[in-house]
């Protein structure tokens, strides 16, 4: 129906396709959005959280569409419900409120035009603002509000859909560009707001689709994005999503196998060579693949060589419409089982509590296993495991008593949620780092009762200071410490305390701040990027400064962090 002269009304199929395009564009920018996070360590969240929320929302929409829901109002209601249930992180919760308001503003209509779109955006903005006592300007709230205002201004001139959508996008972009003026922390870090960028990416995707195909066209998920007029910043997107629509649209997610980091650049290169229109995004801990190919088997065979596969979806683009709906439904039913690797002790005799620990990095995982952790959930600084993943790991173990070691400050609260969700007795020992978790495990007594163990393990945590060495991902001043992009930085108990001229300088700075002079033992866990020789040389030079300190070098294999260190 793109042959109609003007796109005056959007129907249900058009809405689904526009939302898919919005989600696809968010996905494409998720990494960049993660990189906008203000805190200068590789701690990417906003893009991922918004994307996971949007994907849950889209899955609900496709499920409804495949059951015959066609009205835009009904579909939007499903979108809002899915976003709410699947919301992740602060930005995800805000996005879910935006979508909830959007759905409410749309009402129960079968189709909608420009005026209704503006009303829906206005309600999206109002709903988002209502759920916080002191809205902070310069965030995604500002971006959706200005987008709504621009849309309403345009809608006052006429009910045509495209100009209103374009106006909303223009307003959103302008507001995003102003976010550093409104928020000092953005100005200090030299970035625009990450959540605001997410809102812009969603609107951009929808607008791109609307210009390319016409809103009334019922279409498949990601394929029909080509052929349209380019929208300013979207040139790259068009390059990667061409017009070829033959073969199979193959989507799959690769997750690390047994915690081994994924060599992203190599995987990306190999997979892109196997098909057309490929989009491969991710990092060492998760890679998403969208690729058009005549032979989906080859993609899967290559992908499974590197890690565990999840959310596999293959659509024959010739039969797009049916395949899309069913495919998405199927994908949501197979939730992220593969992110977890749990082994059960083979002897079968269960005495005492079982241990589930969160870690990434082969060496760290091996160390935890060696100390008796039977279940390992992969995760850490850049990819916090969900409650569900932890719950699965707990349920997968034999025995009725489980001790959970989150090993990350951000995972402790998630871990605590597991306690109420299982019939097993679960105690969370709040370890904030893998070295702390290892210290806690060392105190484990398999013959002791659960509570007694939890208490001694928690006590063991207290005697360990944990420090980390990584690199700043951008220039910023955080808590009075000025860092420049790429500079080695040191954290103690998750707080940035030191920026140095070299990794050695940072380690010395950290040792000076952990009372190393009076400590007995420092353990250095070298990261995936540090060779054993380099690690040994580092220990030797540290030893010169601290002759009385016992310094141990352990292969950690963790991504992002050159060294983790515990001082006790």
């Amino acid at each position, binding site marked *: 129906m793109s042959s109609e002269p003007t796109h005056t009304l959007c129907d249900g199929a058009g809405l689904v396709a526009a939302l898919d395009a919005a989600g696809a564009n968010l996905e494409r920018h998720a990494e960049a959005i993660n990189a906008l996070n203000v805190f200068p360590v590789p701690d990417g969240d906003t893009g991922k959280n918004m994307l996971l929320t949007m994907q849950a929302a889209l899955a609900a929409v496709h499920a409804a569409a495949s059951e015959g829901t066609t009205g835009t109002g009904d579909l939007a209601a499903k979108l809002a419900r899915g976003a709410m249930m699947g919301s992740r*992180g602060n930005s995800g919760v805000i996005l879910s*409120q935006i979508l909830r308001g959007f759905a409410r503003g749309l009402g129960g209509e079968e189709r909608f035009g420009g005026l209704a779109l503006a009303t829906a955006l206005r309600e999206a903005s109002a709903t988002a603002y209502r*759920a916080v*006592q002191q809205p902070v300007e310069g965030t995604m709230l500002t971006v959706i509000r200005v987008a709504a205002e621009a849309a309403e201004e345009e809608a006052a001139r006429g009910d045509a859909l495209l100009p209103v959508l374009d106006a909303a996008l223009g307003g959103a972009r302008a507001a995003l560009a102003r976010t550093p003026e409104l928020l000092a922390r953005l100005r200090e870090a030299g970035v625009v707001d990450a959540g605001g960028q997410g809102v812009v990416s969603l609107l951009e995707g929808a607008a791109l689709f609307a210009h390319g195909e016409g809103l009334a066209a019922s279409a498949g998920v990601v394929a029909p994005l080509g052929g349209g007029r380019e929208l300013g910043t979207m040139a790259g997107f068009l390059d990667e999503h061409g017009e070829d629509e033959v073969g199979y649209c193959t989507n799959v997610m690769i997750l690390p196998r047994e915690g081994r980091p994924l060599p992203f650049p190599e995987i990306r290169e190999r997979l892109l060579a196997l098909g057309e229109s490929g989009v491969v995004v991710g990092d060492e801990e998760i890679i998403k693949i969208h690729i058009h190919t005549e032979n989906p088997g080859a993609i899967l065979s290559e992908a499974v060589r590197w890690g565990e596969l999840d959310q596999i979806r293959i659509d024959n683009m010739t039969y797009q419409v049916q395949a899309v709906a069913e495919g998405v439904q199927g994908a949501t039913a197979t939730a992220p089982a593969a992110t977890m690797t749990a082994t059960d002790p083979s002897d079968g005799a269960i005495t005492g509590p079982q241990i589930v620990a969160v870690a990434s990095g082969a060496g760290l995982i091996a160390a935890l296993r060696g100390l008796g952790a039977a279940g390992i959930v992969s995760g850490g600084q850049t990819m916090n495991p969900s409650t569900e993943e932890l719950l699965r790991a707990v349920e997968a173990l034999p025995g009725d008593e489980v001790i959970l070691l989150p090993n990350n400050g951000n995972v402790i*609260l998630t871990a605590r949620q597991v306690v109420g969700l299982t019939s097993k007795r679960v105690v969370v020992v709040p370890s904030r780092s893998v070295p702390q978790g290892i210290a806690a495990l060392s105190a484990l007594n398999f013959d002791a009762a659960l509570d007694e163990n939890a208490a001694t393990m928690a006590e063991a945590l207290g005697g360990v200071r944990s420090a980390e060495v990584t690199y700043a991902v951008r220039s910023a001043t955080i808590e009075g410490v000025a860092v420049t992009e790429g500079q080695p930085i040191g954290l103690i108990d998750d707080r940035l305390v030191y920026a140095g001229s070299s990794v050695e300088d940072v380690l010395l700075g950290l040792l000076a701040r952990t009372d190393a002079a009076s400590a007995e033992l420092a353990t250095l866990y070298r990261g995936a990027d540090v060779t054993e020789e380099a690690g040994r040389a580092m220990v030797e030079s540290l030893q010169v400064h601290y002759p009385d300190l016992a310094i141990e070098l352990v292969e950690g294999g963790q991504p992002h962090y050159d060294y983790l260190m515990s001082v006790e």
Partner: protein
Amino acid sequence: MLRRGRVATASGATGKVEISRAAIASIAHGALMESYGVVGMAPSGLRGNLAYYLRQDDPRRGIAVEVSDEQITITLSVILEYGVRISEVAQNVMGSVKFAVERALGMKVVAVNVYVQGLHFSDDVKGKG
């Protein structure tokens, strides 16, 4: 030695600093005001020793602070906007309150407990939580 439960102390080379629980509650309140999904505070209710009653109009209403052995535990009684995913908002609140207090005081917050005492329905939806 600090008096258990009354104040948080941090000793330095030139003396010691005492921070009252009310001051800690004020910092938590600031973080809560900007916490997405939280639209109000509720009286603490019967939470045993944690209860820290405040006047109706006190900005620290619904915030209980416990200090023990230089470790801070904060208990929040909040009202959330209807329609948000409660577990996720609660986690976000825990994170931001802990961050704000630790940043301001340089002391460890060992736990932030969130009790969701009610939900608030916005004007356009009938009913009151």
